[in-house]
């Protein structure tokens, strides 16, 4: 962090950098930092914000004092009789579901997005191909929700109006109620998420791929490297900073993502995620303190990714 290791080129005076930063910092302070701190206070208070959260404790039950809302946020969904039950209940809680979402959706969107960006570069209809992957992003979810309900619809009559079940019955199978079957439904919802967000990853990664200089690729080809080797040995290392950026952004997006679950299942049948629970506590149960505590947990959950980003930041500058 000492300025000594910083390349000479970055030393442009002490005041100048703040001139570039000031507008952004001011606006972010007013619209994010100040309101957030304002609201975080509520996470230590009862539901009307009139007394400390400690007053909401019930006799004979576990109590974390002013951190009572955090106790609720973290443990309300868990069965804390034994380690085993904690483990089991964790995986069907909103936290477990959010982890599933992060794991499946981030690898799905980044993987498919990167693969598609690379493949699309080699064909003449690149713009069209990318536009089609991007299109779901442009459809607002109010509309997209309608069609996905029709994809997963489970009909009770002979005629299936849901696409997947129509295929299943045409092949002689028995229709599956996708959205009300616990565990299967979360995967089905993640698929909707991948459909929507792959275009995002693809666009950013594609922009980064365009910055890989032609000379480098040509040089590798002249050396006789296969396309596969070029991909892993040349392209991925060059765009790895961007891959980390996309992963970080996607993790954040998934943590905040709530409309898919809200529209498709309303959090029923074991599909609840953290963002959903926050919304429910805030606006359905009017437990602002609890809702805010969940939000703070969300913010804390991102710390490992902040660490990862700082490390990469340092590594990048060390290479200059």
């Amino acid at each position, binding site marked *: 962090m000492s300025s000594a290791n910083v390349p000479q080129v970055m030393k442009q005076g002490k005041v100048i950098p703040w001139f570039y930063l000031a507008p952004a910092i001011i606006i972010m302070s007013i619209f994010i930092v100040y309101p957030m701190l304002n609201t975080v206070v509520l996470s230590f208070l009862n539901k009307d914000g009139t007394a400390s959260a400690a007053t909401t404790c019930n006799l004979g039950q576990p109590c974390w004092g002013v951190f009572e809302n955090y106790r609720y946020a973290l443990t309300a969904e868990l069965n804390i009789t034994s380690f085993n039950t904690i483990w089991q209940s964790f995986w069907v809680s909103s936290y477990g579901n959010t982890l599933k979402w992060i794991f499946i959706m981030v690898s799905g969107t980044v993987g498919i997005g990167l693969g598609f960006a690379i493949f699309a570069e080699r064909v003449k209809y690149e713009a069209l191909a990318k536009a089609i992957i991007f299109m779901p992003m442009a459809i607002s979810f109010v509309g997209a929700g309608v069609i996905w309900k029709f994809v997963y619809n489970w009909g009770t*009559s002979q005629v299936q109006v849901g696409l997947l079940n129509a295929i299943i019955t045409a092949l002689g199978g028995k229709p599956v109620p996708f959205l*009300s079957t616990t565990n299967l439904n979360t995967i089905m919802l993640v698929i909707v998420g991948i459909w929507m967000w792959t275009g995002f990853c693809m666009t950013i990664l594609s922009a980064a791929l365009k910055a890989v200089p032609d000379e480098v690729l040509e040089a590798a080809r002249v050396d006789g490297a296969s396309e596969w080797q070029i991909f892993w040995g040349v392209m991925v290392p060059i765009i790895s900073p961007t891959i980390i950026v996309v992963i970080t952004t996607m993790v954040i997006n998934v943590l905040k993502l709530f409309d898919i679950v809200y529209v498709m299942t*309303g959090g*029923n049948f074991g599909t609840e995620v953290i963002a959903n629970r926050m*919304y429910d506590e*805030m606006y359905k*149960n009017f*437990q602002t303190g609890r809702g805010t505590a969940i939000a703070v947990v969300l913010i804390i959950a991102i710390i490992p990714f902040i660490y990862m980003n700082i490390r990469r930041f340092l590594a990048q500058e060390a290479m200059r």
Partner: protein
Amino acid sequence: MKTKSIVVVSMIVILTMLLASCAKAAPVATEAPMAEATEAPMAEATEALMPSEIDCMGAAAGDTVSMLYQWSGVEEENLNKILAPLVEACGIVINPESTRDQALLDTRVQAGTPPDVTFWNVTQLSQYKDKLIAMTDLGVNGDNYAEYWKNIGTVDSKWLGLPVKADPKTLVWYSPANFTTDGYAIPTTWDELDALVEKMVADGKVPWSMGMESGDATGWTGTDFIQDILLVTQGPDYVMGIIDGTIPYNDPGVKAAYEIYGKWAMSEMYTVGGAAGTVSVGFNDAINKVFSNPPEAMMVKQSGFAGGTVKATYPDLTYGTDYDFFGVPGAKGLQGGSDWMMAFSDKPAVKALVAYLSSAKGGEMWAQVGFDLTPNTAGSDAYVDAALLKKGQILANATGFTPDIGDSIPGGFGSAEFKGITEYVNGGDLDTILNTIATAQIEGLK
């Protein structure tokens, strides 16, 4: 070249900002249809109409009322029609906002910028009780409301909400044509209903269509059904006891009702698709299944709005012969959904609105437009639509009216109840579920 593109970009920004400031100055968009109507006839209308019919309560032409409600589409159109005479007579301007996102109302209230008036659920009366203006201070015409409505709208002995719209829920929709073909008669007691259901099953027919999927509110069709069963097995006082907390939600009576419901809702013989059908079929689809050709089920228990759903999906069917309803047999009371008007402001235009909606003229107008039912007794004979007339009589003759339990207990009770019944039908343990809901009941009423 680079400076050029910067110039172009800043030009665009400045241009849109200018346009936006112009738009600000221009007359507000959504009020236009109403404002337009007010311009010409205003002067004559005030004279033409009898002063006793619409009392402007001192509101001057051009006074505004901001409104926030959950209605949209046709519903919003209906409200416009109902308010048109008031707008014409007094020249007040209505600034409506429509959303079903509870976040908006709550954010506005917490930030200290609530709308003048909102139409929302009965729970909001106790949630915002410190900020609401009592109806009696707003010139309400209390004589037009039955005592039970006033009681429901009263919090801490202040009458805070005006019931504007009601929809009876204790109804069973069926196809008279199908009933005739199969030789079924409308049951008049719960035992007859039970026998009819068993007879249908014996005939190889599916008696019920109980689908309750409704996005984030999935389950409300089920809890409505539970409340109707409670009205049969226990009666209205019991239901009111749950609402005020004297009867815990895990009481044996409630459990028995869930078991009666569960027997039907979880079996493929009794309801379309069995348990999976109950939790995954949308509530509107569930209505349609009774009137499809061939029908998938014989009956659906649903509120008064179901007729509208049938009409939209099957435009060729006619009310009375192809679709009709009867009250849940044996119910010792009525369950009704209701919408309430509450005021955060006591300005004259708000008073004019309260006075109008609670007046004879307002009640008649509500009934004529046919926006479900009006609790305003002046409207009870003014319905034009045959189905509404029948529903209106059911409401008017109701003894032991009970509001929706889920709408009446504040806090997270409603969503806990919905989630609970969904879980139960999907195979959850009933005692655990009822205990969870009972906890939400205690917390909500604390």
